[in-house]
């Protein structure tokens, strides 16, 4: 417990500085847009109606979805900008998070500013006009100071919302206090989850109190309150942001990771190797499944691990299954041609989607393959992770075996295993390299019709790094170097309930098991129960 707390505390400067930078930028931008808009809105009823309507509408979009939507939008803009202006920009990480949070912060500021400005006593406004103030003087000398307490109240709401929602920037590749929550949820490290929640809540509360001090100061015309609040905010922001200033300027290699334990461990493994070679490395964790490949193709991350079947179906849009070696060959040439992405090779193990059951249940129902499962499926409940049911693999499986489950339930992966354990579901979409499959002796159902393609873990290098010889040479020894059992053990050490270790610690253990000088493109032996291939990405 104490160790995990110390581990969380050690990450705080990095996470907090990014979180503060993001929220602060979003709030400043939100203010810069909302205030002039509010002024225009008070002078013109149709601007008022439209702007408040749109801001309210944005508020109804779930914040996570809003953040996610900005990535493809920015990516498209970046491609256009690349084409027309000659240089693109980062579509992942800071930019989409900033835009989404800015939009999110606008409603409270806009609504309160409009209410505050329109609430100024008409007699005072008439006096200002009657004395010969211009429209701008009236705003700056009279309306804005009188509306300031109400505007500040809106700013407080916006600050609390933005700081809270900024935790959701993690899945689009922006480091934030959400990294604690997302990685903690993934590895069932509740100390991390609580630490992240507490840090975000503490930051929001402190900001709210300081802004509240300014608000009261404005309402009571108390200068010391305004100054105390402002100095508190500036000092707090300066302390929180100081780790950023210390960062060196050279662009680091960026290692990407999707949002599950195996990815975190492999990203740490890759990062360690690169760092050992003297390079500076940053890790972008918890990337959404579809964003990772696009980010790599766009050069926003330099290297990450994906799975052959995923790329085969989702990127190359293939529905056939020509066999393991053919998929890997086809992928290597296909991705190079399509995006210039370098497929360095398979790491040596497979992480396939596989339907899994508890051994007692499988025995009782006499189910060993998906073909055995099909006739029983109308009586059974299937649990899946959040994306499996919308993936082509599921469509292929269902069509090939005529699966018709009584009910389908989606879970965050951790809770999916829990649901199987407690018999809330009968079958789950497991991952063959998941440590929990081995630990709980789950039965992986064979796929006699080969409905799902193979899922070798492959190392992908971005187009811009494909010709970076030192980089590629540093990574190449990883090809064929990781066995399924080593990966399962590493995953289990992170996912298990007791004595769990951090992904970094698991990566360290995994690094020791790497066989030096493993041959290029060597494939580890297929898993013994590796009939049913499905996969996750």
């Amino acid at each position, binding site marked *: 417990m104490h160790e995990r707390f110390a581990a969380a505390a050690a990450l705080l400067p990095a996470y907090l500085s990014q979180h503060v930078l993001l929220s602060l930028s979003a709030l400043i931008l939100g203010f810069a847009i909302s205030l002039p808009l509010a002024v225009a809105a008070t002078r013109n009823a149709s601007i008022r109606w439209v702007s408040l309507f749109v801001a309210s509408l944005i508020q109804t979009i779930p914040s996570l979805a809003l953040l996610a939507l900005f990535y493809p939008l920015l990516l498209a803009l970046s491609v256009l900008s690349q084409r027309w202006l000659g240089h693109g920009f980062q579509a992942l990480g800071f930019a989409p998070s900033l835009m989404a949070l800015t939009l999110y912060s606008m409603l409270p500021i806009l609504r309160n500013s409009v209410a505050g400005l329109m609430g100024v006593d008409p007699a005072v406004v*008439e006096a200002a006009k009657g*004395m010969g103030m211009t429209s701008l003087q009236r705003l700056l000398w009279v309306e804005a100071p009188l509306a300031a307490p109400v505007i500040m109240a809106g700013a407080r709401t916006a600050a609390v919302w933005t700081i809270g929602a900024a935790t959701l920037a993690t899945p689009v590749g922006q480091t934030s206090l959400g990294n604690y929550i997302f990685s903690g949820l993934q590895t069932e490290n509740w100390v991390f989850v609580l630490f992240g929640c507490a840090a975000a809540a503490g930051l929001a509360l402190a900001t709210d109190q300081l802004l509240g001090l300014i608000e009261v100061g404005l309402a009571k015309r108390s200068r010391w309150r305004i100054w105390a609040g402002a100095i508190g905010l500036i000092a707090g922001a300066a302390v929180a942001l100081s780790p950023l200033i210390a960062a060196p300027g050279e662009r680091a290699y960026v290692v990407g990771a999707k949002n599950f334990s195996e990815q975190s461990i492999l990203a740490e493994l890759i990062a360690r190797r690169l760092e050992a070679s003297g390079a500076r490395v940053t890790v972008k964790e918890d990337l959404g499944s579809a964003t990772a490949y696009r980010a790599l193709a766009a050069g926003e991350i330099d290297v990450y691990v994906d799975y052959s079947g995923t790329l085969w179906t989702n990127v190359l849009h293939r529905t056939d299954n020509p066999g393991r070696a053919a998929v890997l060959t086809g992928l290597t040439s296909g991705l190079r041609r399509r995006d210039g992405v370098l497929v360095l090779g398979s790491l040596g193990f497979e992480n396939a989607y596989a339907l899994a059951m508890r051994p007692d249940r499988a025995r009782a129902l006499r189910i060993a393959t998906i073909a055995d499962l099909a006739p029983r499926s109308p009586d059974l409940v299937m649990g899946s992770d959040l994306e499996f049911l919308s993936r082509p693999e599921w469509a292929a499986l269902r069509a090939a075996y005529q699966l018709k489950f009584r009910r389908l339930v989606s879970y965050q992966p951790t809770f999916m295993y829990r649901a199987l354990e407690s018999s809330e579901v009968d079958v789950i979409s497991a991952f063959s390299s998941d440590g929990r499959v081995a630990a709980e002796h789950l039965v992986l159902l064979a796929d006699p019709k080969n409905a799902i393609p193979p899922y070798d873990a492959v190392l992908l290098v971005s187009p811009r790094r494909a010709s970076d010889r030192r980089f590629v040479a540093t990574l190449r020894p990883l090809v064929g170097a990781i066995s399924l059992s080593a990966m399962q053990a590493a995953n289990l050490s992170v996912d298990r309930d007791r004595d769990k270790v951090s992904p970094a610690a698991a990566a360290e253990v995994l690094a020791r098991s790497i066989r030096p000088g493993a041959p290029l493109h060597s494939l580890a032996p297929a898993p013994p129960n590796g009939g049913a291939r499905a996969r996750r990405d």
Partner: protein
Amino acid sequence: MTAPEIELRGVAKSYGGVAAVKPLSLTIDTGAFVALLGGSGCGKTTTLKMINGLIAPDAGEVVIAGRSATDEPPHRLRRRIGYVFQEVGLFPHMSVAENIAVGPRLAGWDKARTARRAGELFDLVALSPEIAPRFPAQLSGGQRQRVGVARALAAGPAIMLMDEPFGALDPLIRDALGADYRALHDRLSLTTVMVTHDVMEALLLADRVVILDAGEVIADGTPTDLLAGHGDPRATALMETPLRQARRVQALAGGGRDA
């Protein structure tokens, strides 16, 4: 009397097709104290606000000191015209001193000149300089209205427009403030146009009373002339009330002595 200070040439205003002020012409001489008198909705406030451009006339022309009001942006014109109204409209976030300094600030005066002027103004409107650092919420109604007058006078305007300036005050303070203002008007050689619905106030303060009804001038003359009788029955009826009240008060006072 020299050239007219304010000239309204056929100004008119209507709202949603209803005429608030029918084409109206009025010439106000420099130094005059004119009361615009009438019931609510007669168009007196609209007429007043057309003088300093707070309301833009639909037709006609406003001429101030020989220049058409449309020759310059309205805010510039307003800086040369003092404006006082019933709600006062003191800026609640500014102290008394800051409120008074708004006009000089708009006129671009330096700090020393503004401070000197503030001292004069406190004397002028019979306020203690001690209230300078207070905020409007800390003042009595009478004090607020005196600050309102001081603020309107701060930049030294030649014209004062007043819209029911003393309407919200209790009768004693109202009478005192009215008398004080009249003295100021004479001392500073101002040209004052005051809107009121109070016949007595109009008769006692103004040199000339213009009676409006339904957006039209129905009578225009000195208080003495108007009291002596006027052709328009509506104006005569309006004058009857204060005369009748005066006779009754006199009777009461006389009766009291006789008893």
